[in-house]
């Protein structure tokens, strides 16, 4: 072997050994220091604390929880709240983004300007500031229960949140049935249409059954709605979305909507204008060309960026801690303050958010595969 190469190799080897040695020594030093400090402060290590009694209350939770439950259960309750706000905000942000992108692409100059103004202002101010603003709206500016706003019969908006009627089990099942019929009509109808069948009659029957089931059940007395009842200081019965949830939901949707709108607009612009012209030459109308030619291609281009914006939304939901929404980070920080086990908590956060990341990324891969050609 060429001696200069050998020398080079020796040099690399020496550097590597030296670096490994330094890194190991540093890690050992830090670890022993941390261990020493933790012992001095009387802080345990390991994940044993998860089964200890938490002893603090959580404002709201999708799973049963009280102060006597364990830290593990508290964190699970927080995680369920994170999922609740993240999932609902994802849909709202997508809808809002679609709306704003549509306004920018509509060719209506005023709508375009309004959408651009919305995007510029919301994107260039901190999300936290916007959350504080919405929190003020939902807790200070909305009227007290006595002067509540009635949006629909049984749906009340006040500074204690949004109260709405909930169906009991029987009616809930009827709702599910109606939804299933509608979804079946849509999907099976589309499949029939793609085979060239005439589906008008099928659709009419499907839609009327789907939409008719709920009123039918209501009039025949199968199940009933739990209506919220107004008390002097509280509203009992029915369901409630807390002001904290509403704050986070509205704030996250409006903030992330701007990013989605920009992504969608960019993607539609990026689909070569020749595509639209070719569609027009083939005799497709403007609507058809947009729906069948431009949109599928644009969706494919936009999908990766939209997914990363949705991941940001999930991460940003941790700002709920600032407005008192008991999400994972909020609950976890209380646990961290009580037990002092910061390192373990960070590991749990990472595990939770990485799990959500993996799920969303997998979903997007499935979607992406559908748009492959």
């Amino acid at each position, binding site marked *: 072997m060429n001696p200069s190469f050998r020398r080079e190799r020796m040099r690399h080897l020496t550097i590597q050994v030296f670096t490994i040695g330094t890194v190991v020594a540093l890690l050992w030093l830090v670890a022993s220091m941390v261990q020493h400090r933790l012992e001095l402060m009387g802080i345990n290590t390991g994940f044993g604390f998860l089964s200890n009694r938490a002893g603090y209350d959580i404002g709201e939770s999708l799973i049963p929880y009280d102060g006597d439950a364990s830290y593990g259960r508290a964190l699970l309750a927080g995680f369920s709240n994170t999922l609740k706000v993240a999932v609902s905000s994802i849909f709202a942000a997508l809808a809002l983004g679609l709306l704003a992108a549509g306004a920018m692409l*509509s060719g209506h100059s005023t709508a375009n300007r309004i959408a651009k103004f919305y995007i510029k202002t919301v994107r260039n101010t901190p999300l936290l500031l916007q959350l504080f603003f919405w929190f003020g709206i939902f807790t200070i500016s909305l009227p007290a229960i006595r002067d509540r706003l009635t949006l629909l019969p049984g749906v009340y908006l006040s500074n204690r949140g949004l109260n709405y009627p909930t169906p009991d089990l029987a009616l809930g099942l009827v709702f599910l049935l109606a939804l299933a019929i509608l979804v079946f009509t849509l999907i099976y109808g589309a499949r029939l249409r793609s085979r060239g069948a005439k589906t008008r009659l099928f659709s009419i029957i499907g839609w009327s059954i789907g939409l008719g089931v709920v009123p039918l059940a209501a009039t025949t007395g199968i199940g009933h709605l739990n209506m919220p009842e107004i008390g002097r200081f509280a509203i009992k019965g029915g369901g409630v979305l807390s002001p904290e949830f509403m704050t986070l939901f509205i704030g996250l949707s409006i903030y992330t909507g701007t990013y989605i709108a920009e992504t969608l607009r960019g993607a539609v612009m990026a689909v070569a204008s020749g595509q639209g012209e070719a569609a027009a030459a083939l005799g497709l109308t403007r609507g058809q060309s947009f729906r069948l030619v431009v949109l599928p291609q644009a969706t494919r281009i936009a999908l990766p960026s939209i997914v990363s914006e949705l991941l940001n939304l999930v991460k940003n939901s941790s700002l709920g801690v600032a407005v008192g929404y008991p999400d994972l980070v909020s609950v976890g920080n209380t646990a961290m303050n009580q037990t002092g086990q910061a390192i373990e908590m960070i590991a749990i956060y990472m595990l939770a958010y990485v799990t959500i990341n993996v799920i969303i990324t997998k979903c997007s891969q499935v979607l992406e595969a559908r748009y492959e050609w």
Partner: protein
Amino acid sequence: MNGNHTLSLPQKLNVALFGDKIRTIISILLIFIAVFAGPGLINWLLLDATWVGTSEDCRVNGGACWAFLGVKLNLIVFGAYPTAEIWRPMVFMALLTLIAAYAYQRPRSIKQVILCLCVAFIVGLLLMRGGILGLPVVANTRWGGLPITLIVTLAGLGASFPLGILIMLGGASENPLFRIPCRLYVDVIRGIPAITLVFMTFAIVPLLMPQGMMIDKLLRAALGLTFLTAAYFAEALRGALEALPKGQDEAAAALGVGYWKRQRLIILPQVIANSMQPLANIAIAFVKNTSLLIIIGLFDLLGAARSSLFDGDWQGYYRELYLFVGLIYLVICLFLESYVSKLETERSGRISR
């Protein structure tokens, strides 16, 4: 068909607003919204608003209470900094504004701008701390408001950009000893919420220090954001690095140029120039992220502004406050945005010449 130029203005408007079905629907919707919400908004913002006066005047008028901002301006912008000494952070901010104006006018002189920023940063810190030139000392626990936001932004961006470059280079290295930790770092940091990282540095860094050694609160807070932003910088730069033709590096290596010199003279200038837009977005995100410091009890711009709400005489004027503070953030971020696009047009003009 007649060209648009033969149409009169009302006709043009008619086409623009009611030209086809979609536009007509949007126009009707917008008119409906304007009629429904417009008067109330204008009343609140302008007609019923109180521009100067007391909280009593605000209550009587019922509109926006801009007088509140006037009364609390010092607290909102400068936090708890002693009122008699407020000229010091003002001088610091004036310096930064001057540098910003200069940078905007002369997009080619980036090196001078960076040098000026370093000098202004040090001068600003010394000035705000005092203890020199016979100025009384103001401990940094009393600093607050916009100066804190600017200091943390400058220090954090200044530290995280070089760190991001190193991590990017490490991630691109052939040596797994560098590559794996760097890639892992970027993936892990980008996977967790910013706020947990800020918390973590706040809670864990003291544990890592030898006993008795305390790191300043301000520094610890900036540290978390720095670690976060370095990962994002590294990721943005990696994208540009992968787009760079491999021949650039190989040709330089064949000429016998050493590793660091190659990175410094060949790779980095191209990589940075090609990732201007994502880098600018990260810088803007940093400015916005400084607001997270409020959660660990630091009085940055948002924190100081929020503390002005706790005055019993002036309660509930959060809308005016957040609109005003939002405007400050908006100005800073839009300035960064337009500065970077100016840098880019200047550069593309130079290349095409």
